[in-house]
């Protein structure tokens, strides 16, 4: 086993240990305060408004490959879809999930089916759709969903490139709220300009914690915070050591 392998496995196990410790502390009733992210507050209100007004919520989980690193942000999108589906499937117009990858389309259908079964609502196989197999065709298909199906709010959480701007623009023109987050750097720049509530960097991955998806989400968010400070300290120490000639 190489040094890099040992360090990598050690990092993963340390991260896992932190999550377990924080999850244990969370179960013992220790209050955790998260910094306010206005996007998620607005999302909660948008969910309530959509149910009252009989509008549909559109959740788009991007076109990331499920076998690649983009799968992680798509899984966050599925977690948020799960939360939204449990709250809104019972309404007149249940939410619709769009994606640009076949695996994500099947997973989104599974999430919608589970949510409908849990609350005793009717499940429609059209609630999770593949709208296109290339990024722009996926965006074009998602745009028609936003425009034609009385969407009250669009939530884009997944791996998006610059094509997400087209989906947000249609959402804006339809008068609905647009909330978007991605792991892709050019995508984040575009979402900052086009979405009403953009999520930058790791705010996207905090969605589960802010939407009460479970104590493990809050625990993993705290573990991320700790590790981020640890990495910052290591970078600063390394820079100082290099500056003073120790490295």
């Amino acid at each position, binding site marked *: *086993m*190489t040094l890099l*392998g*040992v360090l*990598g*496995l050690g990092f*993963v196990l340390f*991260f*896992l240990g932190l*999550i377990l410790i924080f999850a244990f502390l969370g179960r013992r009733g220790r209050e955790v305060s998260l910094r306010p992210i206005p996007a998620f507050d607005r999302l909660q209100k948008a969910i309530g408004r959509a149910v009252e007004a009989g509008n549909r919520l559109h959740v788009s989980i991007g076109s990331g490959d*499920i*076998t690649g*690193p983009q799968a*992680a*942000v798509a*899984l*966050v999108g*599925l*977690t948020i879809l799960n939360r939204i589906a449990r709250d809104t499937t019972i309404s007149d117009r249940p939410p619709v999930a769009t994606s640009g*990858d*076949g*695996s994500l*389309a*099947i997973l989104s259908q*599974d999430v919608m089916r589970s949510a409908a079964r849990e609350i005793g609502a009717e499940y429609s*196989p059209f609630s999770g*759709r*593949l709208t*296109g197999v*290339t990024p*722009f*065709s996926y*965006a074009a298909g998602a745009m*028609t969903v936003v425009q*034609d199906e009385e969407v009250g709010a669009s939530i884009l959480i997944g791996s998006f490139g*610059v*094509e997400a*701007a*087209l989906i*947000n*623009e249609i959402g*804006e023109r339809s008068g609905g709220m647009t909330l978007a987050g991605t792991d892709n*750097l050019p995508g984040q720049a575009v979402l*900052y*300009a*086009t979405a009403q509530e953009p999520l*930058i*960097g*790791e705010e*996207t*991955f*905090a969605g*589960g914690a802010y939407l009460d998806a*479970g104590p*493990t*989400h809050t625990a*993993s*968010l705290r573990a*991320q915070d700790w590790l*981020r400070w640890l990495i910052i300290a290591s970078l600063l120490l390394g820079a100082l050591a290099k500056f003073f000639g120790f490295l």
Partner: protein
Amino acid sequence: MRAPFSAVIAISLGIIVLLGYFVPIGPLTSLRIVLLDWAVILAGVALIVGVVNLFYVHWKKTSEGNTESLYSGVLVFALLITLVLVGWFGPTHTFSLWIFNYIQVPVESSLMAMLAITLAYASARLLRRRIDLLSGVFLATTLVVLLATAPLFGIEIPGLGELRDWIAQVPATAGARGILLGVALGVVATGLRVLMGADRPYGG
């Protein structure tokens, strides 16, 4: 498949693949490669299932008889024609390449052109929607980079190119690395939650 059974399979296979990256034991590495190959094959099958779903959604829309059903009809027709032609003649045949070069590429190019206008309009709207320091910096940076890369009327403003290079090499790279660090931590956290069974996107 019952939820606990699918969770056990998913978690155990996930741990095998994770260990296969860090622990260089022959059988473990081979098993990792086999499992990843299976995942790629399943993703391909999922694509076919997704396309069938796409066809079915739009086929249903064509029977509704409203304005939008015309576009769905065009999609269904195009899908069937492309499937028949490319399936019969192969993806490198003249007909298949003609569809790609004279239909798909122009359509996607026009969407990209629309994107340019959309972004310009969105940038102007940003000033109205969110007037703060960060929005101002965002727009100023965009203008500097645009003017330095593609000067208006060919007039080059002295020093703008150096400013663009400095922005790209120092603050932009620093910010990008910071964001990527946070994203990497988020990715690892998400993966660990799936391996712990706390997140189950695979059913139940």
